[in-house]
């Protein structure tokens, strides 16, 4: 273990750290959006769209991100559709994450108790009012734990971007190992780099979960 090797590599890792962070952030935000759309289509039982999105979600959930990326990056261009590596990464993360996020939101909406919905109906609420005042506020609060788990999961999945040559953390570490053969040092820095990203995220999500829970249900 050589201290100087570690120190020398830090600027390189810092660049990669930002790549991981920004790609995670964008991918997760888009995944949440897709997830919300899928779960809304499910909630409002939108014909056709709902079935289509269900098929999408099953495919996305039951195949590895690595293959999704290979497809986007290596196979699609054969058919004439080409995206940059960055775009592939974001699209891949959104594709995979959207299905997971949809699961989380749908679970939340379904978790709203039937009696809550009926008491809303008994007040004469329309479907939209029911959604707006009863199901969404409570359902979104219920889905926070799943959302938190998904965020952590998706950040970690960015490590697979390495296979499409995106210079994020894992790719950078592997690259440095290939160049200078100092695997101990670089792997240590790599693990620490993920800790630097994930520990604050985990703490924040824990806090959010407690807050939302208390705000919505008082426990």
């Amino acid at each position, binding site marked *: 273990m050589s201290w100087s090797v570690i120190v020398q590599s830090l600027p390189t890792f810092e660049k990669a750290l930002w790549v991981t962070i920004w790609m995670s952030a964008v991918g997760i935000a888009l995944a949440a959006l897709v997830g919300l759309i899928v779960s809304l289509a499910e909630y409002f039982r939108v014909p056709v769209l709902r079935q289509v999105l269900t098929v999408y979600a*099953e*495919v996305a*959930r*039951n*195949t*590895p*991100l*690595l*293959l*999704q990326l*290979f*497809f986007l990056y*290596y*196979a699609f261009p*054969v*058919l004439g559709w080409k995206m940059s590596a960055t775009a592939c990464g974001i699209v891949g993360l959104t594709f995979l994450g959207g299905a997971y996020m949809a699961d989380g939101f749908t679970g939340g909406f*379904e978790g709203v108790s039937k009696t809550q919905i009926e008491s809303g109906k008994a007040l004469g609420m329309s479907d939209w009012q029911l959604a707006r005042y009863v199901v969404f506020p409570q359902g979104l609060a219920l889905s926070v734990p799943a959302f938190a788990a998904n965020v*952590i999961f998706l950040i*970690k*999945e*960015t*490590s*697979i971007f*390495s*296979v499409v040559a995106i210079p994020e953390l*894992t790719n950078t*570490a*592997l690259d440095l*190992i290939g160049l200078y053969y100092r*695997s*101990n040092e670089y*792997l240590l820095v*790599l*693990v620490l780099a*993920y*800790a630097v990203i*994930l*520990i604050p995220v*985990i703490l924040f999500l824990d806090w959010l979960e407690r807050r939302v829970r208390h705000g919505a249900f008082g426990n």
Partner: protein
Amino acid sequence: MAHSGINVLFAGHNFARLMGGLWTSVWIAALSILFGGILGILFGFLRTRSNRLVKLIFRLYLEFFRIVPTVVLLFLVYYILPRQFNVNWPGTWMAVLAFTLWVAAEYSDIVRGALESVPKHQIEAGEALGLNDRQLFWYVSLPQAFQLALPGTINLATRVIKTTSLLMLISVMDVINIGQQIIEANNNEHPTTVFWVYGLIFILYFIVDYPLSWWERRLRKNSKEVK
């Protein structure tokens, strides 16, 4: 052109090779789930019973695996173990080890959660019958926790299967690695090979994973209805 690409899948032993690769992935997943599951039950049990220090150690163990991506984990085992600890197994067993440790961590949390969600009054009903701690665990906690943990267990299994796609990165001859060999051997003559090979592997993963996730979903739905 597209036609020639798809033929590559069935040329020579290609299809059998791919299936062989899939088998490698599946048995690595199966063994990891088995070993990791056993360890996970043990760790999860210890986490509900032990003193603070032991709990803390297992908690840290879990958090480590929560933070480190599985790819990185594979490389850690692949690079560090042989050199630092002179462990010298083939890549497949390295993979089983890495996955087992990971599964054990995640599963210990599922088991702990399930044990803790066995209703308190069930435990008390057992106590009221004079059951001792061991009997309480075997006759009351464990059977009920098993039911509660089943969907989470299946979910973890689907993730392990999907994660076997990373084996390629540590040179295990898994289905993707063999796919790449086939692509490399044929890509020049048949440029669409890449599409068909990845497409087939994509479908193979879906076929293996989908029934499990369907089962999980059904279990969760049933348990919601019972409530």
